[in-house]
């Protein structure tokens, strides 16, 4: 079990292959869900590097998804840039913002870092809302899709794209966490002063992990914008950031597969609750699901603070 859990590249390749086959048989509703899971998983993999391995916290990760999405969308709509380059630009933009902000927020730890990243997420969302050039509160419509030659991506292609990115993302992150670099992140998270006293530039490491998590989020955002063709500030609000935390916690913070599992569970659970709740409790709106998501988050933290994957896939220890 353990060897399987750390053989990141082969397992990721198998998953991508299975999904590439699956999308030809699934109804489009489920293909859409698969895409969404892939996009969220990508963000959560990056978040787990920052929170689980480097031991930091971000309650504003949705903002970097938004930056990636808006960058790609603006370049595509206003400059007719292909979303392929838009995704790269989105990642770069998110990375630059994270880099600049790291000098402010990464001076803080734990509770205060959580508050600062939360604040950051909201400030960035306000900018999305108030900046007319990027559509203000009404958002951006008609975002061009990805294309290969004359083939414009459809639902299936987006699902495959999202999961190829998850595969690449997990391969890269897997290499990182199994390298001495990844262990240095763990050292910083476990005993920052002890690591510094040996000469580890912990500030640099935490900054790099933060920027890397923003790159994952930025790419995910660009794919999100093109596959849904429409974005507005509410798509990247505080609640999405909370959802990423939920995915991280459910899967297990210090686990890369946990990120994927967490994303799948949260998305699936959201769908199930949306269908089941009105049947069981007539009159309850589908949005009532957030009650259960909150309860699950609390229950997970009390009962299994290291996440579902802690039993078989925690890297680093053992």
């Amino acid at each position, binding site marked *: 079990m353990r060897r399987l859990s750390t053989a990141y590249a082969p397992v990721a390749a198998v998953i991508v292959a299975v999904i590439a086959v699956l999308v030809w048989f699934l109804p489009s509703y489920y293909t859409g869900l698969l895409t969404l899971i892939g996009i969220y998983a990508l963000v959560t993999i990056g978040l787990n590097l920052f929170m689980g391995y480097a031991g930091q916290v971000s309650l504003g990760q949705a903002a970097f998804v938004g930056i990636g999405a808006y960058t790609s969308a603006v370049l595509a709509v206003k400059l007719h840039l292909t979303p392929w380059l838009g995704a790269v630009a989105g990642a770069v933009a998110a990375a630059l913002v994270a880099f600049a902000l790291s000098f402010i927020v990464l001076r803080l730890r734990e509770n205060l870092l959580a508050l600062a990243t939360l604040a950051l997420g909201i400030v960035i969302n306000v900018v999305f809302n108030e900046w007319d050039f990027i559509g203000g509160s009404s958002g951006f419509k008609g975002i061009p899709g990805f294309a290969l030659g004359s083939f414009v991506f459809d639902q299936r292609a987006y699902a495959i794209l999202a999961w190829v990115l998850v595969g690449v993302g997990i391969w890269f992150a897997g290499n990182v966490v199994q390298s*001495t670099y990844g*262990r*240095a992140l763990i050292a910083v998270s476990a005993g920052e002063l002890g690591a*510094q006293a040996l000469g580890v530039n912990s*500030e640099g*490491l935490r900054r790099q992990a933060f920027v890397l998590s923003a790159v994952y989020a930025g790419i995910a955002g660009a794919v999100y914008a093109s596959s849904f063709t429409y974005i507005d500030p509410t798509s990247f609000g505080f609640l999405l950031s909370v959802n990423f935390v939920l995915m991280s916690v459910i899967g297990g913070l210090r686990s890369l597969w946990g990120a994927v599992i967490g994303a799948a569970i949260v998305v699936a659970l959201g769908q199930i609750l949306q269908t089941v709740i009105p049947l069981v409790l007539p009159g309850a709106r589908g949005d009532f699901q957030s009650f259960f998501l909150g309860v699950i988050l609390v229950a997970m933290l009390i009962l299994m603070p290291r996440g579902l994957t802690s039993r078989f896939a925690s890297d680093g220890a053992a």
Partner: protein
Amino acid sequence: MTVTAEPITLTVSAVSMRFGGVQALDEVSFGARGGEVLGVMGPNGAGKTTLFNIISGVQRPTAGSVQLGEVRLTGRPVDRVAALGVTRTFQTPVMFWGLTVRESVCIALTACEFGGSYPPRADRALLPSGLGMPARRRADTELRARADAMLERAGLTHMGDRPTESLAFGEERLLELTRALAVDPRVLLLDEPLSGLNPDEVGEVLRLIRGARDSGIAVLLVEHAVGELLSVADRVVVLDYGRTIAEGPPAVVAADPAVIDAYIGDELE
């Protein structure tokens, strides 16, 4: 025993530290040479840990400075001070939970190569690590061998694969000391490395301290076990209420009335 031929490695010049109305250190000055064990003595609250915090960059002194050779350390962050050659251990060992014993030593061996260090080390940078470059894998194999050699020197070969979470207190102390030695420091600050150890472990730590001295490291030792401290130190500095009250060879200092007074006063309190 004192190797007077060695030049002064670490210079502490007129270091003072105030916390609000408390003068924790008052113009403390001394030098430490490579290849000597300098014991730092003093009753509780004399300012020993504050002194270590200032030398290692954890705290900034209100006045005065610390120099390593010609390089000023004061004002530099902890990791830069360490990269220049001054490392330390802590009263409560700091463990890297989540890593094994060997992995912890690997981090120490490569400590200066992460986080955008300069000059950049391709082997340990983020991108080559993530891309899984073959050169990195070779470097990792070599690193593992060096870590095992360090563990062998410290007599910890059998613990290499154990998770650090599973270590007993004495084993934590030994691992922390091994990590500190792995960075190949010029100055090593040990904050009560013997407290909480059984006699076997005390012997082991003293052996490692002597080994470090013989390899030319300047070892600064804060220790409450006065007997052991006097037996291993080449020279002793005694602090009381933040001031240096005595300095010299262990036998001389131990007989100094001012020192006895300070310690007995402490006992009576």
